[in-house]
């Protein structure tokens, strides 16, 4: 029985895909076209009542929220593949700390930028330039904190790659690629080195090859 991951073309599901590859867990994907509104189909809402991607289906076991899914598979397959949770409860605490930072401080501005810059024309609205400027400023401040952190620590949670770093891959790929804002990463020495390190992991390269984003 293979884990099925819904919505692989989009960013949040890619957190799950890269995690499964790191953990050497087989999976299959099921496309959901957000632009056609497939995430609001009654059948999909039975799986994910809030109508967002991803969802995973593992036999009868269904989960949603990408950061819940990656925590589960990282723990379930702890003994194989890359360790993504640290070695002690305290190290896991640091992983949780920085995963929450990604969720609450990094993701909101970068998600807004993604919607405004990459999806506005597809969704039929005019990008809000004030909102874009504001989001860039917020993201810059967050990246300044990351620069300081990564000047003292090789990865966000410590000297080991973890879910906390992994969680940043999909939207940051949009930032340096189709959004054309690579300078936000490159202008910060330690963030830049960290980005090179994590984005060149074979697992992430595999995800990009398997499931190219819709741009």
């Amino acid at each position, binding site marked *: 029985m293979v884990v099925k991951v819904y919505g692989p073309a989009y960013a949040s599901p890619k957190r799950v895909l890269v995690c499964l590859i790191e953990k050497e867990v087989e999976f299959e994907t099921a496309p959901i076209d957000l632009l056609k509104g497939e995430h609001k189909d009654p059948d999909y809402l039975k799986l994910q009542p809030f109508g967002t991607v991803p969802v995973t289906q593992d036999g009868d076991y269904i989960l949603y929220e990408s950061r819940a899914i990656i925590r589960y598979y990282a723990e379930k397959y702890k003994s194989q593949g890359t360790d993504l949770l640290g070695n002690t409860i305290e190290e896991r605490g640091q992983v949780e700390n920085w995963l929450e930072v990604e969720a*609450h401080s990094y993701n909101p501005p970068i998600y807004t930028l993604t919607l405004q810059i990459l999806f506005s024309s597809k969704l039929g609205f005019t990008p809000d330039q004030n909102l874009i400027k504001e989001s860039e400023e917020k993201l810059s401040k967050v990246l300044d904190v990351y620069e300081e952190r990564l000047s003292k620590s090789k990865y966000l949670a410590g000297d080991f790659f973890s879910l906390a770093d992994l969680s940043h891959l999909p939207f940051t790929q949009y930032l340096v690629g189709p959004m054309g804002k690579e300078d936000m990463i490159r202008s910060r020495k330690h963030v830049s080195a960290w980005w090179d390190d994590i984005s060149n992991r074979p697992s992430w390269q595999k995800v990009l090859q398997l499931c190219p984003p819709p741009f």
Partner: protein
Amino acid sequence: MVVKVYGPVRAACPQGVLACLLEKDVEFEIVHVDLDSGEQKKPHFLLRQPFGQVPAIEDGDLKLFESRAIIRYYAAKYEDRGPKLLGKSLEERAVVDQWVEVEAHNFNDLFYTLVLQLVILPRMGQPGDLALARSCEQKLEKVFDIYEQRLSNSTYLAGDSFTLADLTHLPAIRYLMTDAGGLAHLVTQRKHVNAWWQAISTRSAWKKLMNLANY
């Protein structure tokens, strides 16, 4: 060694941490942070929490921030005592994480914006954006509809026992029920949400916190 919790006892996110520590019977000391005077943005606090937010904890050598990371840490560390705040299996834990993520991403932002517009800004002598508040309220109605459906099939959000998934909602819903200008109906008009709120808000750990906070 007593856990130091940095933040006001009446702020929502520190309350999540305090509720968890009380459920697990872990001794703590509250170190007040004066948000009104911007203490959380001062250099000495930024050393502790670089985003200038509360809470943060210090437990011997361990320092953590982000309330949902802190509660996961203590729930795991003290897994063997008190209520099973992470469920009884890895699969249950993932469902707990899923609903904590739901609270973080689908509930918290709406609640926060509503309270900012209806309560906090007016208190500071500035007009709130009533259209924005109304829009948040409508979205929150839809979120609560999903909760109502879930709680009609499940006594607590993640299953048949109280977990972090329920705990993490306590501070915000308390606020909705008391301080936040006429929003209690969101809970009281939904049979299962109301019953759930009654159950979780009458737990002795929560009542202890209410005493500590002098409500």
